[in-house]
């Protein structure tokens, strides 16, 4: 399955950042975008340590958060350790982190910068 989570976009007309992919800019209605590369570092905006997990995940808990990359892209991802705080600087790693129905799934894994 083609997952549309590996690229972020900037609207050619108004500059609004879009992630994940959509076909029309929410701000100005333009349909033209340029690819916006992710930066290596980001800031943790919020997170939760989640204990009751859905079918298909065998971990005792997961820490999942939302980070803002230094160029404005915001994305959800897994966090490597639970001892984090809002505002922490994080290293953003694009990783293979699970399988769903036998399919490899890649996504963001955030790691606190020491």
């Amino acid at each position: 399955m083609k997952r549309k989570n590996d690229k972020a976009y900037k609207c050619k007309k108004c500059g609004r950042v879009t992630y994940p992919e959509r076909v029309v800019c929410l701000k100005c209605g333009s349909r033209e975008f340029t690819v916006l590369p992710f930066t290596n570092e980001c800031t943790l905006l919020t997170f939760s340590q989640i204990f009751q997990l859905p079918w298909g995940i065998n971990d005792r808990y997961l820490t999942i958060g939302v980070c803002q990359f230094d160029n404005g892209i915001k994305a959800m991802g897994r966090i490597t350790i639970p001892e984090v705080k809002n505002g922490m600087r994080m290293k953003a790693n694009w990783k293979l982190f699970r399988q769903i129905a036998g399919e490899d799934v890649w996504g963001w894994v955030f790691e606190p910068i020491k």
Partner: protein
Amino acid sequence: MRNVAIIGVGMTDFGRLEDDTLMDILSSASLHAIDDAGIDPKLIELVYVANMGGGILNHRTAIASGLVDNIGLIPAAADTIENGPASGGSAIKNGVMAVASGYYDFVLVVGGEKMRDVSGWRATDFVATLTHPDAEYIYGITLPGMAGMFANLYMEKYGYTRRHLAEVAIKNHKNALMNPYAHVQMDIAMKGILDSPDAAINNSPLAEPLHLFDSCPVSDGGAAIILCPEDRVKEFNKPVICVAGFGQATDTLTLAERDDPTDLKAVTLACEQAYKRAGITSKDIDFAELHDAFTILEIAEAEHAGLYKKGGYKKAIESGENKITGSLPINPSGGLKSRGHPVGATGVAQAVEVTWQLRGEAGERQVKNARTALTVNFGGFGNNVVALVLRRGK
């Protein structure tokens, strides 16, 4: 446009309905509403069925077609409405428009869900399918997890503590003790869920900062209403309860993409539309049924609906004005927190509760002198919200 009224309401018990299928639940709620109205079923021309999980959880699709067959409403028009946890509100909105426009006179709106056929693990996964498939769901996010991230920010920004959340839970559990239809019939106290060593066991973490007692249960259940033009209510010997206004608004699918993730814009917009259509302001609301799937949502929705300023619901919690005996009762039914949350049924159940209250039929949990009420049915994580204003007529 015609004014639209509710002439019949009905509900099943909410909880674990082991012996009932989804169709049994929808049928039972519908027949309760038909009997309550005292309407000849042959008059019902249109049926809207609100359901989110029939296809995934119960291996059943085209549910509206099955319902009209089962309860003898053929050849009425019938449609299933799926809008996540706001399916019930959406179905009512469509029913109201059908009557207001003059196309139909008598419309049955029923919502139902059978969620306890599967394990909690599966039910959690089912609800999580409403998140973005490529940017949220893949990480193992759950709706409690979304609410946990939201609560983390909201509590920090507006100064709420876990004690405030616990007070909301305690209030709604007490209200549900007076609601015979409620799923959770259990009195709880601060000592048991927050203020003792046992609280760590009784009230284990769900999605930090939210704990078990901050969350609604997974429920089976159904609820139904019958709509008609206001000028035909006199044929049914029922009080006039009008749907005075509705509103619906959407927001980005992903929480991350919102400029301010603590701002539930769709709640504000939906409520503003509903107030405007009803010709009122938030100050005219006597009580509200809010979508407290998590305690933090009762707080945030009360504030985004304009009932309180941001951070102002603390005052209601601390003074008790949000209790049934207070000046602005919130969730007299027990809310999703304790009445339960069969997702497709919830928006309809809110309207049923408000109708009982406005008729003066709510028994021990009756809100005194209630004339105008608000419901907020919160779909996704605030990305599709339906608000209704119901008013007792003269």
